[in-house]
């Protein structure tokens, strides 16, 4: 099949995004831009793993941040209790993944038999219970304040990866080769590996079975695929990936709290990203995550200006206030679900294709 120009557009956008993320520390030399780039990497993985559920298999779960949180808190607690070191990162990550696996299997086996709607409600309830538990078990999780800790020594800003003749940090194109750079590339590399693994899965026979289940569950069952087993498997898989992403993010941020790893706001972000980018394609996750994270960081500034400009009109300044940006995204979200259910990537890729 000849690729349509829409597909070419999406794929070239992918290349541009990948290149920008790869060279981010060199292209945008300020701290905030690096934060944005790392967040984009993590959220691409998180959203892609959610897309495995919602886009490829047709399961709506509201517990995805719960698994992200398990991973993040696993690393965070291990780093806090055992001190900064690779052993604590490894232990915390493994613990997070194990907990995610157990919880995902339990939820999956109990409730994936029932209708999609029940599953959505049950995951929502489970996630909210975990959120409250995290704020109540404050000796372990730091409660609402979260936990601050130190990352392994390699990632300290003071660490010198290479030195020049005077013993100072070597610079490449004006960028200091310090621990911050190492940390960014750690985030980038793990995200890339996780994303490629998921991409491989979606084009494998397993991915085809998942799509078959999404399209017609009874038929997939009749052909001989054990639908519950596949669903539980993909639920566990996405939980594990989300948990790993959480661990990496915890190492990068050196802080873990309900707002960064567990809150319902993150779940809404993921949902918006997956729908805006496009459900059912991994590329959609990349586009959605990139756009949304950029919007989160830069749109607010714009809205602040707009709010001041409209100060004379009633209610409008309140709705344009930077904190109300979710209002506009929510409206965009609803309109997208109505008119472009395939999201940006899906709609573009369908362009030029013969029906």
């Amino acid at each position, binding site marked *: 099949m000849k690729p349509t120009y829409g597909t070419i557009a999406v794929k070239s956008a992918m290349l541009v995004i990948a290149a920008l993320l790869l060279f981010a520390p060199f292209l945008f030399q300020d701290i905030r831009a690096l934060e944005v780039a790392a967040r984009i990497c993590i959220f691409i993985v998180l959203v892609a793993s959610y897309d495995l559920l919602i886009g490829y298999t047709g399961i709506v779960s509201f517990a995805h941040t719960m698994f992200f949180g398990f991973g993040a808190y696993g690393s965070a607690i291990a780093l806090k209790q055992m001190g900064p070191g690779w052993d604590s990162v490894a232990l915390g990550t493994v613990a997070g993944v194990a907990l995610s696996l157990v919880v995902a299997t339990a939820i999956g086996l109990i409730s994936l038999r029932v209708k*999609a709607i029940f599953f959505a409600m*049950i995951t929502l*309830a489970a996630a909210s219970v975990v959120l409250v*538990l995290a704020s109540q078990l404050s000796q372990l999780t730091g409660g609402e304040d979260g936990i601050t800790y130190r990352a392994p020594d390699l990632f300290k800003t003071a660490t010198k990866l290479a030195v020049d003749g005077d013993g100072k940090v070597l610079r490449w194109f004006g960028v200091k080769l310090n621990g911050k750079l190492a940390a960014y590339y750690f985030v980038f590399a793990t995200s890339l590996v996780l994303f490629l693994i998921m991409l491989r899965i979606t084009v494998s026979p397993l991915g085809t079975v998942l799509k078959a289940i999404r399209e017609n569950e009874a038929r997939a069952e009749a052909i001989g695929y054990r639908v519950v087993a596949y669903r539980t498997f993909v639920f566990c898989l996405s939980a594990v990936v989300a948990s790993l992403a959480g661990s990496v993010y915890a190492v990068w941020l050196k802080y873990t709290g309900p707002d960064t790893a567990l809150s319902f706001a993150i779940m809404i972000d993921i949902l918006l990203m997956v729908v805006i980018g496009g459900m059912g394609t991994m590329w959609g996750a990349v586009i959605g995550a990139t756009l949304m994270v950029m919007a989160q960081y830069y749109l607010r500034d714009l809205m602040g200006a707009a709010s001041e400009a409209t100060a004379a009109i009633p209610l409008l300044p*309140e709705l344009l206030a930077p904190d109300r940006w979710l209002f506009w995204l*929510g409206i965009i979200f*609803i309109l997208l*679900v109505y008119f472009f259910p395939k999201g940006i990537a899906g709609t573009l890729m369908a362009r030029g294709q013969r029906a």
Partner: protein
Amino acid sequence: MMNRVSETLGRLGGVNLLPLALAAVAFVLIGAPSSWVTLTVAGLSMGMMVFLMASGLSLVFGLMDVLNFGHSAFVSFGAFVAATVLAALSTWLDGGWMLASAALALALLAAIAFGLAAGLFFETVIIRPVYRDHLRQILITMGALIVSEQIILAVWGGTPVSVPRPSFLEGAWIIGDVSMEIYRLFAMGLGAVVFVGLMVLLNRTRIGLLIRAGVENREMVEALGFKINRLFIGVFMLGSALAALGGAMWAGYETLITPALGGEMMIVVFIVVIIGGLGSIEGTLLGAIIVGLTANYIGYLAPKLALASNMILMMAILMWRPSGLRPAVK
């Protein structure tokens, strides 16, 4: 032997006995009769308020197979509208019980009216285009929830709003060493009235007959020439109004409300409708009472477990009866 026991239990009311069993177990565990009565009253009143919020959700699902994740927006809006009306009429609240109850009635009516209007808007604009498509339904109603929460934040701000309530609902009745908060009794009474009203509407009127028939077999009712869509708008508006009323009652109960109220109640409402079985009013009442009682008993016996208890309860009941205690006939 086992058969005869289960038969006798079935004749006595089957799953309807669960709240009684729960109360009996709690009586033994708590030990002190006076605190048991207080807790039971608290549990029942909480159950009744949750029932108000949950009944609409359950009925809408039963009739149209639509699950509205934005339902909690009606709860929040009801709470804030009632709080605003009460605050505006605060001089009435101090002016004797006639004026005070007029203010209360106005506040509740404002919440109901708002619920009706919002329900109409929600049904026609948001949900109508995505009938029969669960995935998009969940997404769209979730989006609507986000937007509504933002509107609440924009209009009322993020700081807690205090809710004045009429003085005749303040305080507690003390009989012997048992104390019962008057507001709780009031909430219980109102919930009971609404429940009876709903039962009469569903079982004794022609509209109720159509609704029940629609729950059981929608296509057949349509084939007989009834406009079930119009009926559905009515049910949706009623459900939204009840949710707003529940929110208003809850606002008076909490006396300090934040925009997070709807989201917090939503979890409880979901657990209630899942336990009760989606689509049936009796099931919802049963689920609400069980959840209310459990929350209060556990809150007293083992406060640390309070939140997890609802979740454990739901899991246990789902393992026992995957479609809830009293699901609608489907």
